[in-house]
Structure formats: C-alpha cells, structure tokens
C-alpha cells in the first residue's frame, strides 16, 4: 500500500456547514464529515463505508422508518433514523445524481 497516499487532515475536508444525515432529502448527494456515537456503533458504520469523506446518495428518506443510502455509489445500506441523526454531512456542490 505504498503508493501516493494523501494524509487526510481536517484542513482538506470541505468546510461547508454540516447537517445531520436525517435532514438530507431523497436524491441528494452528501459527504460524511463526522460520525458521532459510541465506539461500537461508529466502528460498525465505518466498516460499512460511512467514514469521514465518504460520499452518500440518499435513496429513501421518509418522515419515519429507516433511510436507504447508496454508499460510495455501490453498496446499499438501510440505516435506522436514530443513527442518521448522529452522522454529520455536507452537501456536494454539483453532482450528476
């Protein structure tokens, strides 16, 4: 793994305002800024691809019930509403959705 690695520092993460994932509408693309919550939950989410910097497309977000996300374009994840409050994201400027 010794190719050109960029060390990700806070300065390289976009500084747009962050909002909880639960507030993102269907069809929008966002980037994960921060994952809060207890260690087990955070680890599980990161293992599933929801790490800071990951791009998410929201496929389903209704007033109740879990959200469905497309993670990094490919995987589909169903996430309970409670958890989506704890994931902070920023909007992606201009994306072909």
């Amino acid at each position: 793994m010794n190719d050109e690695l960029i060390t990700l520092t806070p300065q390289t993460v976009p500084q747009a305002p962050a909002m909880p994932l639960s507030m993102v509408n269907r069809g929008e693309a966002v980037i994960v800024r921060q994952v809060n919550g207890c260690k087990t939950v955070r680890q599980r989410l990161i293992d599933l691809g929801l790490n800071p910097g990951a791009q998410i497309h929201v496929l389903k977000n209704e007033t109740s019930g879990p959200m469905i996300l497309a993670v990094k374009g490919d995987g589909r994840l169903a996430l309970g509403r409670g958890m989506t409050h704890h994931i902070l994201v920023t909007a992606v400027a201009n994306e072909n959705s």
Partner: protein
Amino acid sequence: MTVMIALAGNPNVGKSTIFNALTGSRQHVGNWPGKTVEKKEGRLRVGSEEILLVDLPGAYSLTAYSIEEIITRDFIINERPTAVVAVVDASNLERNLYLVAQVLELETPVILALNMTDVANSRGLKIDANRLSQRMGGIPVVEMVGNRSLGLDQLKQAIAQVTAHPPQALPHASYNGALGQEVATLAAQISANPALTAHYQPSWLATKLLENDEAILEAMEAQGETGLLEASAAAQERIEAATGEDAETLIADQRYTFIGSLVESVLERPSTSILTTSDKIDEIVTHRIWGLPIFLLMMWLVFQFTANVSAPFLDWVDVFINETIYGWGVSFMAALGLGDTWFAALITDGIIGGVGGVLVFVPVLLFLYFALAVLEDSGYMARAAFVMDRVMRWMGLHGKSFLPLIVGFGCTVPAVYATRTLENEKDRKLTGFLATFMSCGARLPVYVVFGAAFFGTASGNLIFGMYILGIGVALATGFALKHTVYRGQPPAPFVMELPPYRAPRPRDVWRQMWERVQGFLIKASTVILVVSVALWLLMAIPGRANAGSFNDVAAEDSLFAVVSGAIAPVFKPAGFGSWEASGSLVTGFMAKEVVVGTMNQIYMGEETAVAEPTEPTTFGQEVGRTLLGFGEAAVLTVQEVLNIAPRTVNLLPGVDIGEFNFFGTAEEVEDNTRLEAALINSFQRSAGSAELGALAAVAFNVFVLLYVPCMVAVAAMRQEFGGRWTLAQIGYTLVVAWLAAVVVFQVGKLFI
C-alpha cells in the same frame, strides 16, 4: 501434507456459492470451537494436491467487534493458511476492498476472487482487473460469476499456482506521515521480541495496538507486555498532537483513502444515474404503503406453496408408508412366524405407524424450506426486514430481529441461536421469547392433517390463519413487554445491508432444503422413535382392572388413556376435552411432530376394526404402484403450482376462476384417510356436534400453535437465556395457548 486455503469476504458476496461449487459434497459443517458460528470445511483436488478449504464467516472488517471478525482473523493468524481467497462483490468494490486491505495487512498470500461481475456489468461498471492486481501488490485477481460457475477453473489454477510457488515478497501495508513513523517504531520494538514475533506480524500488531483493538489489548495485558502497551499509548498521544486526529480514525482514513484512489484508477462508472434496477424494485418493495401488502402477498405465496403444492407428494408418501411399507411389515412378521404377537404390533403399529406418520410430512417441509431458501438467496429477505422494521418497533425491537424470527418458521431451535447476531442483550432475549410464536415446521403437520380433515381444499386458509395468528400473538406479546418489563429502554441502532437482488442458484437452494430437512429426519429417527415406542407401550398396558391384557386392550382402556384422561377436563372449555386430544398434546412436548404421530397411533389402533380387505399383492405390483403413484404425484405437483395463480386471484371478492385439474378428478374427493375420519368423529364427540367439532378442531390447532416449545427448543433457550427466563416462557405459552383456545371455542359457539 494437506494444503489449507481460507475463504474470506463480506456477507452476501457469494462466498458460500463458490465454496459449494468448489467442494461439492465433500464438505463438513460443524461449529467453531466454543462458539455457535457455523464452520464449513471442504476438500477439493487441484492438480495433484489435496486442498482443505475453510469457509470463514462473512465479515466487514477485522476489528474485534463481532464474533465473525474475531474468528476470521484468529484463523488467519493462528492457522497460517497457504493462501486466503478474498471474495469480493464487484458491484460494491470500494466497501468490499476495505476487508481485503486488512487481510493484506496480515501479510498472508491473498487471491482476489472478483465475484458477481455479471451484476457489475449490468450496471455498466467496468473494472480493470490487471490494474487492480498491480495496485494491490501483484496479487492474482480472478474474475468470476459464482452462481453460474464461471471462473472456477481460473480460481483453481490460481490456487494451484500459489500452492506450488508461494510468493516470496508479500504486499506490504504502510501508512504515511506521523502515523507511518509511529507504526514503524512500534513494529521495530515488537520485532525485537521473539515471544511476539512467533505469533504476530510486527507491523500488523503495531497497527492494532494504535487502533486500541480490544482483543489485542487484552492479549497483551495477559502476556504482561506493559512496556509495549505504554509505548503504544505514548505513540497515540504523539499522533494526536501532530495531526489533530486520534490514531484510530487516522488509520481508517488512510485505509479508505488508499482504497478510494485505487478504485478510482481501476473502476469506470457509467455517466448515467446511480439508480439501478435493483433500486427501482426496492422503491416499490420498500414503499411505505405498498411494502407491507407486498410482503404479505409473498408470505401468502409461500404458504400456498407449502400447503397445497406439497399435497400430492404428501399423499404419495402416506400411501407408500402406511399401506405399502406397513403391508410389507405385516407380511414380514407373518413370514417370521410372529404374526399376531405384541412384537409384530410394536413394529407395525408402534414404529411404522408412529414414525411413518411423521415422515409423511417431509414433502411439506421440503417445500417450505425451498420457499425460504429462494427468498433468502434472492435478497428479498433483507427488504422484508426493512418493511417489518416499523412493525418490529411496536414490539420494542427493530428490523434485524425479523431474521431470527423468520428462521423460527422453519424451526425454533436455530432461531434461538440466530438471536446471537443481535448485539443488544435485551433484543436477544425479547426476540428469543417471541420466536416460539413463529409457527415452526414441526407444528405444520398438525394443521395439514386437520385442514385436510375438516376443511378440504380450503385447508390453505386454515394454515395461513394459524401462521398469521402466531405472528399476531407475537406482536401483542412484544408490545406488552415493551410497555411493562422493558419500559423506557430505547431500541438498539438499526444498520442493515441491502444486498443486490440475485437469481438464487438452484443447487444451493436444493442443498439448503435437504440440510434443514436432515435435522427433521434425525429427530424422527431418534426422539420420535423413542416416543412412539413408549407411547405404544403405554397404550398396550391396560389402565383399568379387567380391561384386557398386554397388547390386547382397547385404546380407551389403556394406561395412556387413563393418564391423559386425568388431564383432559382442562380442555373441556376449549371443546377438545378428550383423552386422545390431551394425550397427543402431552407427547407434543417431546417434539411437535409427535402430536400427529400419537394421533396416528391412537386412532389407527381404534380403527383396526375397519378390516384390511385388500387382496394380497405381489412385491412387483407394489413397486409398480409406488412408481406410478410417484409419477402421478409429480404431475399433480406441477398442477398445484399452476393453481397458485387462480387461487390468489380468487382472493379478490367476487372473482372465481376455475383451477387446473389434469386428471379430471372430482373436486370434493371424499377420500378422507382413516385418520381424518377418526378425528372428525372424535372431535364431534368431545364438542357436541359436527359444526362444533370443526370449531373445536380450530381451537385445538390454536393450542398447538401457541403452547410450549418442544424440549429441544427449551434446552436451547435455557442455554441462551437462562433458567428463569425459560420457565417464564413455558408458563406464558401454556397460559396464552389455553386462553386463546378457550376464547376461540366459546366465542365461536355464539356464532354457530
């Protein structure tokens, strides 16, 4: 020396399909020592080598948070397989490579099996396999479509290659910046310690220490490596000071960044929308309004399948066992000169009658397991769990609990063990408590027999009704518990992957069907056999003075009848206060299938007055009849499959399409088997009239649905949830069952 290869990968990537394709029938399923996770091993021949293939549990990463991950990495570290085949879902490359990157950190030879390339292609994704191999340090990359057996030969070749020429230089994981320096320093410290290097690869251990991996920290403490632990803590502080991030986050970041850039260089995405066909299907299937009806429709189809499509073969097995085999048994006994002895009766009525009565239901279970396997393998089950999440929340659970409950429809025992996938203790206990209401496969024979006896072709409705009632009671129980015992406790977080839809591989479905039926057959040859013999004994022993002698006593005067008769009055308010009914229920504690077996023995015994006037047939004639019957059953099965369509459409009020009828047999074939006739009789007696008899039959079924799980399930519960909890379960199910049966009968009486 046998070469050992491990299969690793995320869940749902087709790892099992590949494992099955490579090992065929040469596989062995057991448990990982001390754990309840399934361990699959198999053998295959590659060239001149005999390979032992170990299927590691599906895992998303190699952290210490779940048992699957611990098993996977411990295996690779301790057993040092010759190579690890990392199976990856090509349509979900980035997430899948996260695990592979961690496997590479273990510095063991890796072969990348790029599976499900068909799904990737259909989405317009293009992957440069050569580039991928290059950028991962030159490891072999084999493109495959596991469920169509494509790429297997290339995979075997890659395995042969790695076995014959073990790679000298392994891809080496390295981190950059302050993190990289600390890893190197710590690794150097570890390399100087032979006690550690014997077991662990230095830079892997260093990384895990900086990640605060729980299992590693514990192991190091146990080994007294305090110096190392202190060094790691100090390193973490330095990293945080230098970068502003904690080491753990940084490590995950760098892994992902590496993978991100890697994927960008090897994967080409179409410039169209990311919405796939799978997503479009999901939009409907998980729709907030349509999702639930669609789910109910799927379940209805499953039960139509199980009840009606299995009927032709059920009848065939019934004839085969209870007439052909029974007849041969009688002739054989006569040939041995044991004609009228109690021994002959034990063999024919006791064993063939009891066990045979249960084996008749193998077709039913096969079809049920077939339907469940198809739903699971196709990926639909995850969507069902999603749809059920809302419903689960009423009970204080969440969608993931749905999966152990679905397993419960097959058998309660694995459902109890399946609750281990739930991380939260409360979720586990609650799910386990409700699992028994998911009517298990062993209770099904009871509904089938009663359905056929009392409702004819509408039996499918009775069966469906039972299952729905079971689910209803589970919901109500969960709801009650949530607001009493579990008041105020928040539900655990819900995270679930939705795998892409896939056509299930027929061979895998077939294998799963038979694997699960095996459990049933083993139970039949042990528990049920013992109970049948014990039951026969109890029925052969006179229970009243002057009632006869051993093996020459009327059923209702036997010891069994006397004992059951003492319990029977309890069931009077439910309409089945007969010794036959209560006796059957008691034996049902051993194994639910035995309820039918017992009824067979009781009623067949009573019905021997109905003589066997059959002309003696030759062996050849019997064989001919059996084969012809098998053929007929096969054709009728196809007919019943086709009939699912009209039956479903006929649910709509006012619609009445005719059904297929290949052999032109009359609709209402009054061919009630002798058991069914005897049941109708008996229930009529205990309830008071013919209509009330049918009502009592329903009440009886309700009782069977809800009462105590079988002793094997009880043992499993005691192991998983503790003695007090299990007692509560037993008590609760008995009470609820009795109340429900009584309510059904008493309230129903008002309407008849």
